[in-house]
């Protein structure tokens, strides 16, 4: 028998029927795969496997009690397959006296079968029934599916509180089933039922925008509220990559540091000891002999060492380029005091002062030096030495800080996201799952609890 055989059966058609209860026109869109059909006019639940559409249940509802955001009969392309919305139900759970409801859309393709879209507070998931059994990890609140660990999020009894269209199972208003969700963002595994029949299904988070495009919808999509159980964190990828960057930056810095230390010449280019008598009325300023600064533009370190005790010297320096006349002016004070009081020995200050002058081009330089001090202090001996090309650690410090601050900020934001996600779970806080965020979370909560312990 070939499909073109004229004697063969005609292609199945969408069936037009009438509700046996109110006579309203009904459509069966799933070619005999439907088990239940709900009349949208009189809210009768009908047996779709019965040619007479036996009425199984009637329920009260306003005609527009709950209209699907994606109307029945709408078709869209999801992951390359066309699906038509054929059924819609609302399910409600009660947690601590508060009712929470979500919507489920039954999607149908005549060859690929059924898929389900769920919507809660503007968060959407595309579900399919699992054909392999997830492994319950006894003792742990996780299941493993295809090598991936899913963490238990919530278990609740879900009651069907509104139905519309057709379903490939016997749907009943008021029927309750235990639903457990296990998450591994962006996926979630749902376990429905207990005892006789357990169905496992897997959902994957879909954004409103993608969905509205898939179904060519023109109405306003709902705005997602809060963080949903399996909503992908916009930051978890950034956290990993930024810490990878921090790590690489640290390694690179370390390498660079080693290279700088190995290649830096730290060349001593000038050193001379002078004596200064502040009581003398001679001109204090003088110039040093010319010394050469070699190599590329780099820093110069000038050290002033004075043999002092309970005295001070202030030296005005100018580092002058003999070739261009450019001068770098700066002043340094060296002071050292010591004594003894009721607390014992004390000292203040130091005999040594070091200053770094950055970005000095190569060339021939000399120093103009003009010391000052208290004329009462007598003769002070001081040594001036100049070193060229000193490696500077501070810049590495700045660099590390520059990358560490955004890294910490992003990590904090990611932790916040996980906090909001798990706040809605049965546990209230994120699990310690060994991941970076989980570990940090745990550290933070331990820190908090140990702190509050101190307060008591």
């Amino acid at each position, binding site marked *: 028998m070939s499909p073109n055989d004229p004697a063969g059966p005609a*292609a199945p058609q969408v069936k037009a029927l009438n509700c046996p209860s109110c006579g309203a026109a009904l459509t069966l869109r799933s*070619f*005999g*795969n439907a088990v239940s059909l709900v009349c949208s006019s009189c809210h009768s639940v009908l047996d779709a496997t019965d040619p007479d559409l036996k009425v199984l249940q009637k329920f009260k509802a306003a005609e527009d009690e709950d209209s699907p955001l994606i109307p029945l009969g709408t078709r869209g392309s999801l992951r390359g397959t066309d699906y038509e919305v054929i059924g819609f139900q609302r399910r409600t759970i009660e947690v601590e006296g508060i009712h929470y409801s979500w919507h489920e859309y039954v999607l149908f393709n005549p060859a690929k079968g059924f898929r389900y879209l769920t919507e809660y507070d503007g968060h959407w998931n595309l579900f399919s029934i699992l*054909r392999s059994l997830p492994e319950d990890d006894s003792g742990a609140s996780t299941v493993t599916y295809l090598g991936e660990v899913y963490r238990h999020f919530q278990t609740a009894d879900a009651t069907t509180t509104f139905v519309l269209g057709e379903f490939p199972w*016997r749907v009943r208003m008021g029927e309750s089933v235990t639903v457990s969700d296990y998450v591994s963002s962006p996926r979630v595994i749902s376990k429905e039922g207990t005892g006789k029949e357990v169905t496992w299904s897997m959902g994957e988070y879909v954004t409103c925008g993608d969905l509205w495009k898939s179904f060519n919808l023109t109405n306003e999509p709902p705005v997602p509220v809060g963080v949903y159980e399996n909503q992908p964190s916009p930051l978890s990828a950034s956290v990993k990559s930024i810490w990878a960057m921090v790590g690489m930056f640290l390694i690179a810095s370390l390498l660079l540091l080693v290279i700088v230390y190995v290649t830096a010449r730290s060349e001593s280019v000038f050193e001379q000891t002078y004596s200064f008598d502040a009581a003398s009325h001679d001109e204090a300023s003088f110039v040093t002999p010319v010394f050469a600064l070699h190599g590329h533009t780099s820093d110069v370190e000038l050290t002033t060492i004075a043999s002092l005790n309970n005295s001070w010297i202030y030296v005005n320096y100018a580092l002058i380029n003999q070739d261009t006349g450019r001068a770098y002016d700066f002043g340094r004070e060296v002071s050292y005091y010591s004594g003894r009081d009721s607390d014992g020995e004390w000292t203040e200050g130091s005999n040594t002062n070091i200053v770094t002058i950055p970005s000095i081009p190569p060339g021939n330089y000399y120093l103009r030096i003009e010391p000052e001090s208290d004329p009462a202090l007598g003769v002070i001996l001081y040594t001036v030495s100049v070193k060229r090309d000193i490696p500077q650690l501070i810049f590495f410090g700045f660099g590390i800080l520059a990358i560490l601050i955004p890294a910490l900020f992003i990590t904090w934001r990611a932790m916040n996201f996980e906090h909001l996600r798990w706040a809605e779970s049965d546990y209230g806080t994120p699990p310690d799952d060994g991941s970076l965020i989980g570990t940090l979370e745990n550290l933070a909560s331990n820190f908090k609890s140990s702190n509050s312990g101190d307060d008591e």
Partner: protein
Amino acid sequence: MSQPTANCPNCGAPIAFRWSGSVQTVCTFCKSLLIRTDLDLEMVGKVADLPAAASPVQLGTEGAFAGRSFVVIGRILYEYDQGNWNEWHLMMNDGVSGWLSDAQLEYCITFAAKPEKLPSECRRGQQYTWQGQTYTVSSITKAHYRGVEGELPFQTWDRKDVIFVDLMSPSGKFATIDYSEDPPLLFLGHAVEFEDLKLKNLRSFEGWS
């Protein structure tokens, strides 16, 4: 492979068998249920019309599974309290008989496994290991024969109710224990995706390409 041809003892229409192991077929013209005996065909009854097809598969559909091609030569429609499902009888290109089940468009391919010691009764959640794979009982279904068409490897005309135990595994491998015979039969196979079967000669659905 031989394709013995005979005539329907009821209406005289030619009856061809595509598979040498077939025991039963249905005359496509007069819907007589025919049993193949050593010599001849025996009419044992008439089959009721099947409900409007819900499956894209039909007699003559071709496909492939695990490197072997197959053609659909028969069908059993089972009914249970949550709906119905099809078991399509396959003739593999190496002469083995197999089954393609279509339960609300969820597909599974199974083959009769060599006899194992099977439980006379089981409960959901019980585990069994066959051929190195552990299976967990996922559902126990009491069904009845709603209808048949085409060639089948056993007689169904005298059967009414049957218990099926379905077992799932973490790897997608699938098992069914069929309690219609004593000792029960074990079928082992795999859950499959529609597109992986590369099916041809499918039924077309109005409004769907």
